[in-house]
């Protein structure tokens, strides 16, 4: 009996994922962009995938703890899907749904790998949600965000330096410290400060002098991270900086300088640091060093190769063989047990989040907020590239988490806050749109909730019928 369920659910789960993923991109098509049907079927598919996955876990393990965990996870998902739109009527539904799909999959996978860690992750997610729910409201209230540019930089560099001085060494890197048994990874939270710093520094002027000054400060962030051997984060900060400068100036020369500078720095790091050379060695020929330097990556490749397209089924594989699987190699364990098709769907879902963020950024006229959305988007997607590319041996390993899916409190809380910052900016954008057509739009979220914007479910493109053409033009000229 159990075989029928697990075997069939394998194909059903992949089918659901494919439909869900397709819908993620349908919302960018003019014809479908305002369709409520898409978002509702997406909600149903999330619950269906959850049901099938947890049913597998319960049937194979015959352990009732999964039943309880399933119920709690569903409560969390319902909370996100119901409460968020209740408070913020204008919230972006695609980002919200994707957040549910990704966190749900993550919790399911972590619970399979290590149950107590899944419980811990669940609690952190809950706390993060409660904190994050205030963010859109706060964003609409706090007026002095643009004035704190140098404060962001100072706090950011300070926090990173603090870890360097007093942090704990885990796996040869100094990246975290703990207070009362709870361990923090400041480089995650500093990402948010960093984006705010960049936005503050570049929103009103982006002369060469200003770009150089921000380069100096950004470089300081990166150097502190490199010295603490947190190479993945260093790369994410660097790429974030280069792309934000390019977006602000539209000058390809900066992009070129960034590429050249990055390559130069990578070469210097390769020469200077032993652990960088080890990573490159393990990437180029892991099979010759399968017992030591290449162990992690080859175990990851075994996992993906053994899983193949449809996966071995939950609890049927052996992902525990990969060291640090819950944090750095969760993607490989997903491919092993749920299949590579599932894995590719996950990548595409995350890409659709990024496309949506870029889409939102394009419509924002306030350069400060535009830069924030843009910076978050770039850092989010680049982090995904680093961890997945590393796990499949496309690029050397850097040891960063997969946002929303990997185990790691700091990572999941930071990503949640980032998503809600974008939600907050998106909601403001919708309200401004409403204001232009003469509706009364209050600052308080409750008032906003009653404002029936014509575009509340869609991609955020201003509705031509409801909005004067002039408004659209200003929106465009704002980013010449």
């Amino acid at each position, binding site marked *: *009996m*159990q*075989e*029928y369920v697990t*075997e069939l659910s394998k194909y059903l789960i992949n089918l659901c994922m494919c439909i869900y993923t397709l819908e993620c991109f349908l919302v960018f098509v003019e014809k479908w962009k305002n369709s409520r049907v898409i978002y509702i079927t997406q909600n149903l598919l999330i619950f269906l995938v959850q049901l099938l996955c947890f049913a597998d876990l319960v049937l194979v393990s015959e352990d009732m703890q999964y039943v309880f965990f399933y119920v709690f996870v569903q409560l969390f998902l319902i909370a996100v899907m119901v409460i968020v739109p209740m408070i913020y009527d204008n919230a972006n539904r695609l980002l919200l749904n994707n957040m549910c799909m990704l966190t749900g999959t993550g919790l399911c996978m972590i619970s399979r790998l290590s149950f107590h860690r899944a419980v811990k992750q669940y609690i952190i997610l809950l706390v993060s949600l409660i904190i994050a729910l205030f963010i859109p409201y706060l964003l609409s209230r706090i007026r002095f965000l643009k004035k704190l540019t140098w404060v962001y930089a100072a706090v950011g560099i300070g926090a990173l330096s603090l870890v360097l001085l007093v942090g704990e060494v885990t796996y040869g890197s100094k990246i975290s410290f703990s207070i009362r048994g709870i361990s923090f990874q400041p480089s995650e939270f500093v990402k948010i400060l960093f984006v705010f710093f960049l936005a503050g520094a570049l929103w009103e002027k982006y002369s060469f002098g200003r770009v150089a000054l921000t380069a100096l400060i950004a470089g300081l962030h990166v150097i502190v991270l490199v010295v603490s051997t947190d190479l993945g984060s260093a790369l994410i900060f660097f790429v974030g900086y280069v*792309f934000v400068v*390019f*977006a602000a100036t539209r000058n390809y020369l900066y992009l070129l300088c960034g590429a050249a500078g990055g390559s130069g720095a990578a070469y210097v790091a390769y020469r200077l640091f032993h652990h960088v050379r080890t990573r490159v060695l393990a990437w180029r020929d892991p099979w010759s060093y*399968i017992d030591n330097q290449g162990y992690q990556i*080859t*175990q990851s*490749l*075994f996992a*993906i*190769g*053994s899983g*193949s*397209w449809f996966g*071995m089924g939950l609890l*049927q*594989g*052996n992902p525990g*063989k990969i060291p640090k699987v819950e944090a750095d190699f969760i993607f490989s364990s997903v*491919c092993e047990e749920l299949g*590579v098709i599932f*894995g*590719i769907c996950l*990548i*595409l879902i995350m*890409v659709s989040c*990024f*496309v949506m963020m*870029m889409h939102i950024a394009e419509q924002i006229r306030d350069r400060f907020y535009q830069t924030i959305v843009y910076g978050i988007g*770039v850092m989010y*997607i*680049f982090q995904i*590239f680093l961890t*997945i*590319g590393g796990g*499949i041996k*496309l690029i050397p390993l850097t040891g960063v988490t997969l946002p929303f899916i990997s185990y790691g409190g700091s990572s999941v809380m930071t990503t949640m806050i980032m998503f809600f910052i974008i939600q907050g900016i998106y909601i403001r954008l919708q309200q401004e749109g409403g204001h232009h057509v003469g509706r009364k739009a209050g600052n308080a979220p409750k008032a906003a909730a009653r404002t029936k914007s014509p575009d509340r479910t869609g991609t955020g493109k201003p509705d031509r019928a409801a909005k004067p053409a002039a408004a659209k033009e200003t929106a465009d000229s704002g980013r010449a």
Partner: protein
Amino acid sequence: MSCGFFLVLFAVTIGYLGYFTATREEEMINNSYNSRQEILLSRNYRGTIFSRDGEVLAESVLDSEQNETRVYPFDNLFSHVVGYSTQGRMGVEALANYYLINTNTSLRNKVANDTAGVKNPGDSVYTTLDVQIQEAADSELGIYRGAIIVTEVSTGKVLAMVSHPDFNPNEIQEIWDSLVENDSSTVLLNRSTQGLYPPGSTFKIVTALEYIRENPTDYQQYSFSCPGYFQSQGSRINCYHGSSHGQVDFTRSFAKSCNASFANMGMGLDRDAFADTLEELLFNEELPLSLSYARSSISVSAETSTDSMMQTSIGQGTTQITPMHLNMITCAIANDGILMKPYFVDHVENDAGTIVKSFKPDTFGRLMSEEEAAALTRLMTEVVESGTASKLSGLTYTAAGKTGSAEYNNIKGDSHAWFTGFAPAEDPEVCVTIIVEGAGSGGDYAVPIARRIFDAYFREK
């Protein structure tokens, strides 16, 4: 713009992941460092290995506690080529491991087996091996050390592969320690693919090919007067047992395997061009072979000394080749210059007899032109008609080939007996390569073995 950049980045990532999954799955599961093999083996028992006509070469027997015993009904006969699976893996047991430990039995059977608490049957592997030909080759080699390979010319199917001394895979666990502890024991070595030997006169095939390439229009006009030796710059090459061949042309030099004439020919060759030809024939290169093998080695360059060039031209000196490699070159000559990749597994079936995967003949590429292959075939036919392999003449089929007596002990003049060739010469079907260690001349010891293997092949047809 930057949006596009990241979309391209992810298109590459997904493409790479998809390509990896599509092409590397088998290799990943087969790697001995992959712990998932044990998971599969705890659920499925190892599938059966069959010969090409359906005789069992290896099967698993389960006791009441679902413990597996691997049984090899033919004992020593297929020891190296089918191999073993309990002390590491070797032979077909290693290369088809992925299929043997996976199961494609129906979902209903899986459910029934799970309920009954028994393992699922692993898929069955049908090899290209032929029991009759393998038996003929094995008994002909007898007590001698050496190796025999029989392949199908047009497909690359390996019909038989024998290596002596052999072992009984049913006893592998008991004899393992004594085999591994004894460093000088080469019992586990598959001499067909891992044994490196001096090619001796069989290498004249290669020298002749290079001479034809450098003299495409007038190689037939070649002439040499053989006094039984050749001397150049103080180095000397003797003909086999010092016999002088008198006035010989190109064909006769080859048929009589005249060392002096070939040393003379070798001295006139362009060494850079020769090095290119050797590379094309896969010397010092990877072979398209799924079993573990040793690489053949040779050294020819502009710096090669006169002495070693003379030695190399007649297959002596530092040159080393595996019997399998020589078989592949011979097959290419028989197949109009095109090498088919040798293979051992024909298809895979599930327990209900449904084909899960079948393997088709696969072309490796061209080793020489059609004209060159035809010229070499004429030379090799003459070896049988009037040369060193005349024990193969006057039969119901016409064979073509080359003998070799590779000296491995300079003082005593001991030699390995070689033969490599194919039949029928006009439309080749089967290719045979034989080495008998320390037996003497190829014409006397290897050719009669070839004859009985060809007989067995044509009798079976």
